[in-house]
């Protein structure tokens, strides 16, 4: 999922302090799971802003709450078509994708971010999310025992650990596992160390972010 973290409320207040009517727009997907932008967080942020406005002599300011199923699809964003124009600002607490798509669809309403979008990751435990994928566009997990050196090695090394790997940990941080240690341990566990010895073609980085914004176009599912 896409992992995001809450923005400091002071920063959000700074964006909207001069607005009269604000919509806090949440998303029911990834940001709900990482407890940054779901219905509950919408309620907390709306309450906070209402208290801020009331306490600063701006008690006629209106802060409404809405949580959409997703903010990255036309069909769900259409649900606010009739009301979006009434607002001076929308604070979207979806991921960066949702925030941008909301801004694209409602061109004349300012849309502000309420979260910092962080990475593609997993919930390791409640309150702890860690990165797993960098969406490089050419998946090599088949050769690396299902552990990604692009996302999990600090140097994105593709041919084994560097000299900084010590006792299974990375040189940049003693708490960080060396991705290649994990890969080798896993290859041994599945009895596929032959993959470690095998030569692979040079990775095609043209599908990575360096080539500019990417797209996936699939004619088979297009209407």
């Amino acid at each position, binding site marked *: 999922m896409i992992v995001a973290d809450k923005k400091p409320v002071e920063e959000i207040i700074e964006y909207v302090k001069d607005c009269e009517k604000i919509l806090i727009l949440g998303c029911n997907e990834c940001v709900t799971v990482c407890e940054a932008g779901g219905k509950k967080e919408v309620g907390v942020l709306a*309450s906070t802003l*209402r*208290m801020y406005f009331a306490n600063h002599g701006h008690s006629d300011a209106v802060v409404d709450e809405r949580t959409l199923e997703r903010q990255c699809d036309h069909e769900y964003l259409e649900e606010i078509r009739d009301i979006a124009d009434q607002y001076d600002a929308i604070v979207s607490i979806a991921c960066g994708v949702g925030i941008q798509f909301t801004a694209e669809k409602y061109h004349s309403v300012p849309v502000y971010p309420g979260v910092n979008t962080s990475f593609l990751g997993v919930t390791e435990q409640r309150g702890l999310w860690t990165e797993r994928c960098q969406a490089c566009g050419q998946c090599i997990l088949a050769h690396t025992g299902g552990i990604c050196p692009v996302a999990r090695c600090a140097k994105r090394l593709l041919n084994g650990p560097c000299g900084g790997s010590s006792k299974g940990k990375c040189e940049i941080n003693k708490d960080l596992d060396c991705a290649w240690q994990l890969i080798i341990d896993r290859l041994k566990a599945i009895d596929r160390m032959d993959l470690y010895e095998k030569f692979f073609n040079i990775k095609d980085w043209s599908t990575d972010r360096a080539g500019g914004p990417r797209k996936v176009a699939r004619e088979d599912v297009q209407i």
Partner: protein
Amino acid sequence: MRLTYPTSFRIIRVPCTGKVDVQHMLRALEKGADGVCIIGCMEGECAYKTGNYRARKRVEQVQRILKAVDIDPERAQMYNLSSSDGPLFGKYAEEMDERIRKLGPNPMKSVQKSAA
């Protein structure tokens, strides 16, 4: 024991303080409650193991939010006591009542009155 506690207290019973969310505390304060006091079991004695620890963290979160909107964070408090300790409950209630009286009414109250 015929113990007393301040009449300003309104008790809301919950199955565990772990059930109390940030949103509940904020809504109470937003609607004009002068303070919110969460009273949970002793630390380490939660029947659900971590409910009271969660509640404490949430109270701290509410305090941070109150600070950000220029409302005294002391309006949200967390206490721990054993369920059989009536005298201590009375003492904490008195303490909370006193603290809130020093702070004065919740600024949200005047806003709600003027709106009405």
